[in-house]
């Protein structure tokens, strides 16, 4: 359709512009990497489903959910840490750390994120186990796929898709629990009292999980995800990848052939097990490729075959291209941990750790009180009938702790100046006022500062101090305007 070819010569075969997906029926395999994959799946799913239910006591003025993204009140709670919107740099810092962490992980162990921890991988793996549970292993699934639609096939398909749907619903349902009190929201959700956005979110995430995990699967990695593209630029001959040692395996030949002519054949017996177990349906023997998420199931498969036929393991293995070359040249194999000595790894680690330490430092030293003052621009000053000069200010006081706190505001810099706020009689104006700021709240005060006749323009400083054991303070300097001396 988009081909620039003007006219196809009649004898040329018709070019295929759109290809049907080749379904993947991966065979069951057991081995150390498969068991590690199980472990990661259990841990990641447990973290995802359990986290919203963890409680954390923050006293009577704050929610008791350990991890809560409270969009309505614009607060982010994570165990003992509470983040306000103006402290969003903590979240930004964490996201940058997550990004650089991916780089770091790629630099150390290649596409391990893709192979083990990526949600697309975890849920696809889960759904493939359901396929196996309902329809049987590779061959049975292949047969069922080829079989015409009949009552048996329809029943199985409906059953399988129903299970997909239940898992998808649980996935989407757990997501919203991070944004509101989990037990309350769960009750409201089934009582029909939850916010419309909650139902919409669950519906969208249920659909995406069902569709991406149940049907799109490896196509997400191959066609949609930007990360494999970025990784293509990040992998080099020093990167740890899952690779087939062709110098050892080629030329391929069956065990029988190899027995007859041992010198003519390599270790690969062309049994196809590495292809059969692959969840993305690729042939690792063609070399590393975008479809390879380095889940290492082919290593498990190949190692088992090698063991059965009495050849050394590791025909397919985690290795760097550089080491492969060295091994092929007859040098002893390099231990895998040696890849850590890659300078790029150290640079990524330094950046990653540097951001982490900076965030920890900022977290440890941040103040939980804050004052900001904005002077009225129109009118800039006000002459009163007794000749004194008044300036208006909007004062914002923040109490970021989960308890009400008494604070003292004092003005300095203008001799004889007094202040009052619009919630008190102006006869009580003084150079210092006290206010109790509600727990976890911002208080807006409309403040007036009045200075005696003849005061010149200058700067006024508002000093805030918390009247508790912490004695935190903050200050804000701004202008005090007065008429020019006549």
């Amino acid at each position, binding site marked *: 359709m988009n*081909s*620039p*070819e003007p006219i*196809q*010569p009649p004898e*040329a*075969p018709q*070019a*295929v*512009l*759109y*290809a*049907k*997906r080749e379904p993947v029926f991966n065979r069951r395999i057991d081995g150390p990497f498969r068991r590690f994959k199980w472990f990661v799946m259990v841990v990641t799913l447990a973290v995802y489903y359990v986290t919203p239910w963890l409680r954390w006591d923050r006293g009577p003025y704050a929610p008791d959910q350990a991890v809560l993204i409270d969009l309505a009140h614009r607060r982010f709670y994570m165990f003992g840490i509470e983040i306000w919107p103006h402290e969003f740099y903590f979240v930004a810092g964490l996201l940058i750390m997550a990004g650089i962490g991916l780089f770091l992980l790629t630099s150390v162990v290649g596409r391990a994120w893709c192979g083990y921890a990526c949600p697309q991988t975890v849920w696809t793996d889960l759904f493939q186990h359901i396929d196996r549970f309902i329809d049987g292993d590779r061959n049975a699934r292949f047969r069922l796929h080829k079989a015409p639609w009949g009552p048996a096939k329809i029943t199985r398909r409906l059953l399988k898709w129903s299970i997909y749907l239940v898992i998808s619903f649980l996935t989407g349902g757990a997501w919203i629990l991070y944004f509101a009190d989990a037990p309350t929201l769960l009750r409201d959700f089934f009582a029909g009292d939850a916010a419309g956005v909650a139902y919409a979110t669950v519906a969208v995430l249920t659909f995406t999980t069902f569709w991406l995990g149940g049907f*799109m699967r490896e*196509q997400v990695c191959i*066609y949609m995800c930007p990360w494999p593209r970025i990784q293509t630029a990040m992998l080099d001959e020093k990167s740890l990848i899952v690779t087939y040692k062709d110098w050892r395996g080629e030329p391929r030949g069956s065990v029988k052939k190899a027995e007859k002519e041992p010198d003519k054949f390599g270790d690969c017996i062309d049994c196809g097990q590495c292809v059969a177990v692959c969840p993305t349906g690729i042939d690792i023997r*063609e070399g590393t490729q975008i479809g390879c998420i380095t889940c290492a199931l082919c290593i498990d498969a190949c190692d088992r075959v090698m063991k059965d036929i009495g050849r050394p393991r590791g025909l397919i293995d985690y290795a760097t291209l550089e080491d492969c070359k060295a091994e092929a040249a007859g040098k002893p194999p390099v231990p895998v941990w040696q890849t850590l000595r890659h300078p790029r790894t150290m640079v990524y680690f330094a950046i990653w750790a540097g951001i982490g330490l900076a965030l920890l430092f900022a977290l440890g030293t941040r103040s939980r009180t804050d004052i900001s003052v904005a002077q*009225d*621009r*129109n*009118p800039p000053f*006000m*002459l*009163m*009938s*007794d*000749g004194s000069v*008044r300036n*208006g200010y909007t004062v914002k006081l923040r109490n970021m702790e989960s308890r009400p706190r008494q604070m003292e505001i004092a003005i300095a810099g203008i001799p004889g100046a007094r202040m009052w706020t*619009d919630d008190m009689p102006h006869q009580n104006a003084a150079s210092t006022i006290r206010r109790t700021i509600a727990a976890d709240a911002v208080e807006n005060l409309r403040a*007036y500062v009045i200075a005696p*006749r003849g005061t010149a323009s200058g700067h006024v400083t508002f000093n805030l101090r918390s009247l508790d054991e912490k004695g935190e303070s903050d200050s804000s300097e701004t202008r005090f305007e007065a008429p020019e001396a006549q």
Partner: protein
Amino acid sequence: MADKRIDSETGVETVGHEWDGIEELNNPLPRWWLWTFYACIAFAIGYVVVYPAIPLLDKGTEGIWGWTSRGQLAAEMKKEEDRKAPILAALAARPVEELPRDAELMRTAVAGGRAAFKVNCVQCHGAGAAGSKGFPNLNDDDWLWGGDLKSIETTLIHGIRQPGDDQTRFSQMPAFGRDGILDSTQIQYLVSHVRSISGQEQTGPSAQRGSTIFAEQCASCHGPDGKGNRAFGAPDLTDAIWLYGGSRADITQTITNSRFGVMPAWGQKLDAGTIKMLAAYVHSLGGGEDFVEAAAQPAAEVNEQP
């Protein structure tokens, strides 16, 4: 041209083009991609059918859902009006001097007044209500006709010197010079006196002579000590605030030709709720006075010439 071959490195067929040795592999798109493309086309058709989309000569197509941006605006405005209706009703029902007892209603009134002020009042009083020469500053503590909520409301409803409103704020200062009541020397004595009682000049012989004239001509409205009288809107002449300027030239001008400002009677144009909101806003600007029963009597009865 169509020199298709199997690429030896990848095992993929080429599309058959070659540009200076560069060839293109034929990796077909997944078929669902094509379906996505068709789905987008279907969506676009649906969009064109239900929403206004195609411009015609006089107007565009309307779409079967009948949505328009104007209609959406009208609906949102209606919603806002509906939201405000009970607040305005509550405001209309409550005497303005009792507003401070309901802090929530007062806050709402101040906020609403701020918006109404921007529409109706800033033309004379300025966006910050700081006024200018001849237009009073509403932020300060100096009030011609009273600065409590009730007085401000009365001024707003009936205006100042508005013909046709028998309760309008009214008074008239004589043009002492122009009408020949005082000669220019006497006026200069008077200027000296006025400037001395406001602390702008030392009291000299000129001011002492002016003091006698003041007692005869001015004290009836401005008071014997020059502190003014709100019943007549007569300003306090001893304070630091001068609506028309406090220099010798300005005061001479004022006494010679007299001064008086006007303000529309907003009661004819705005509803009672909006006027209360405006009163609350003006009162909140920093110079508002407390309402006391004695000050409640509007000075409207005093509309004969003093």
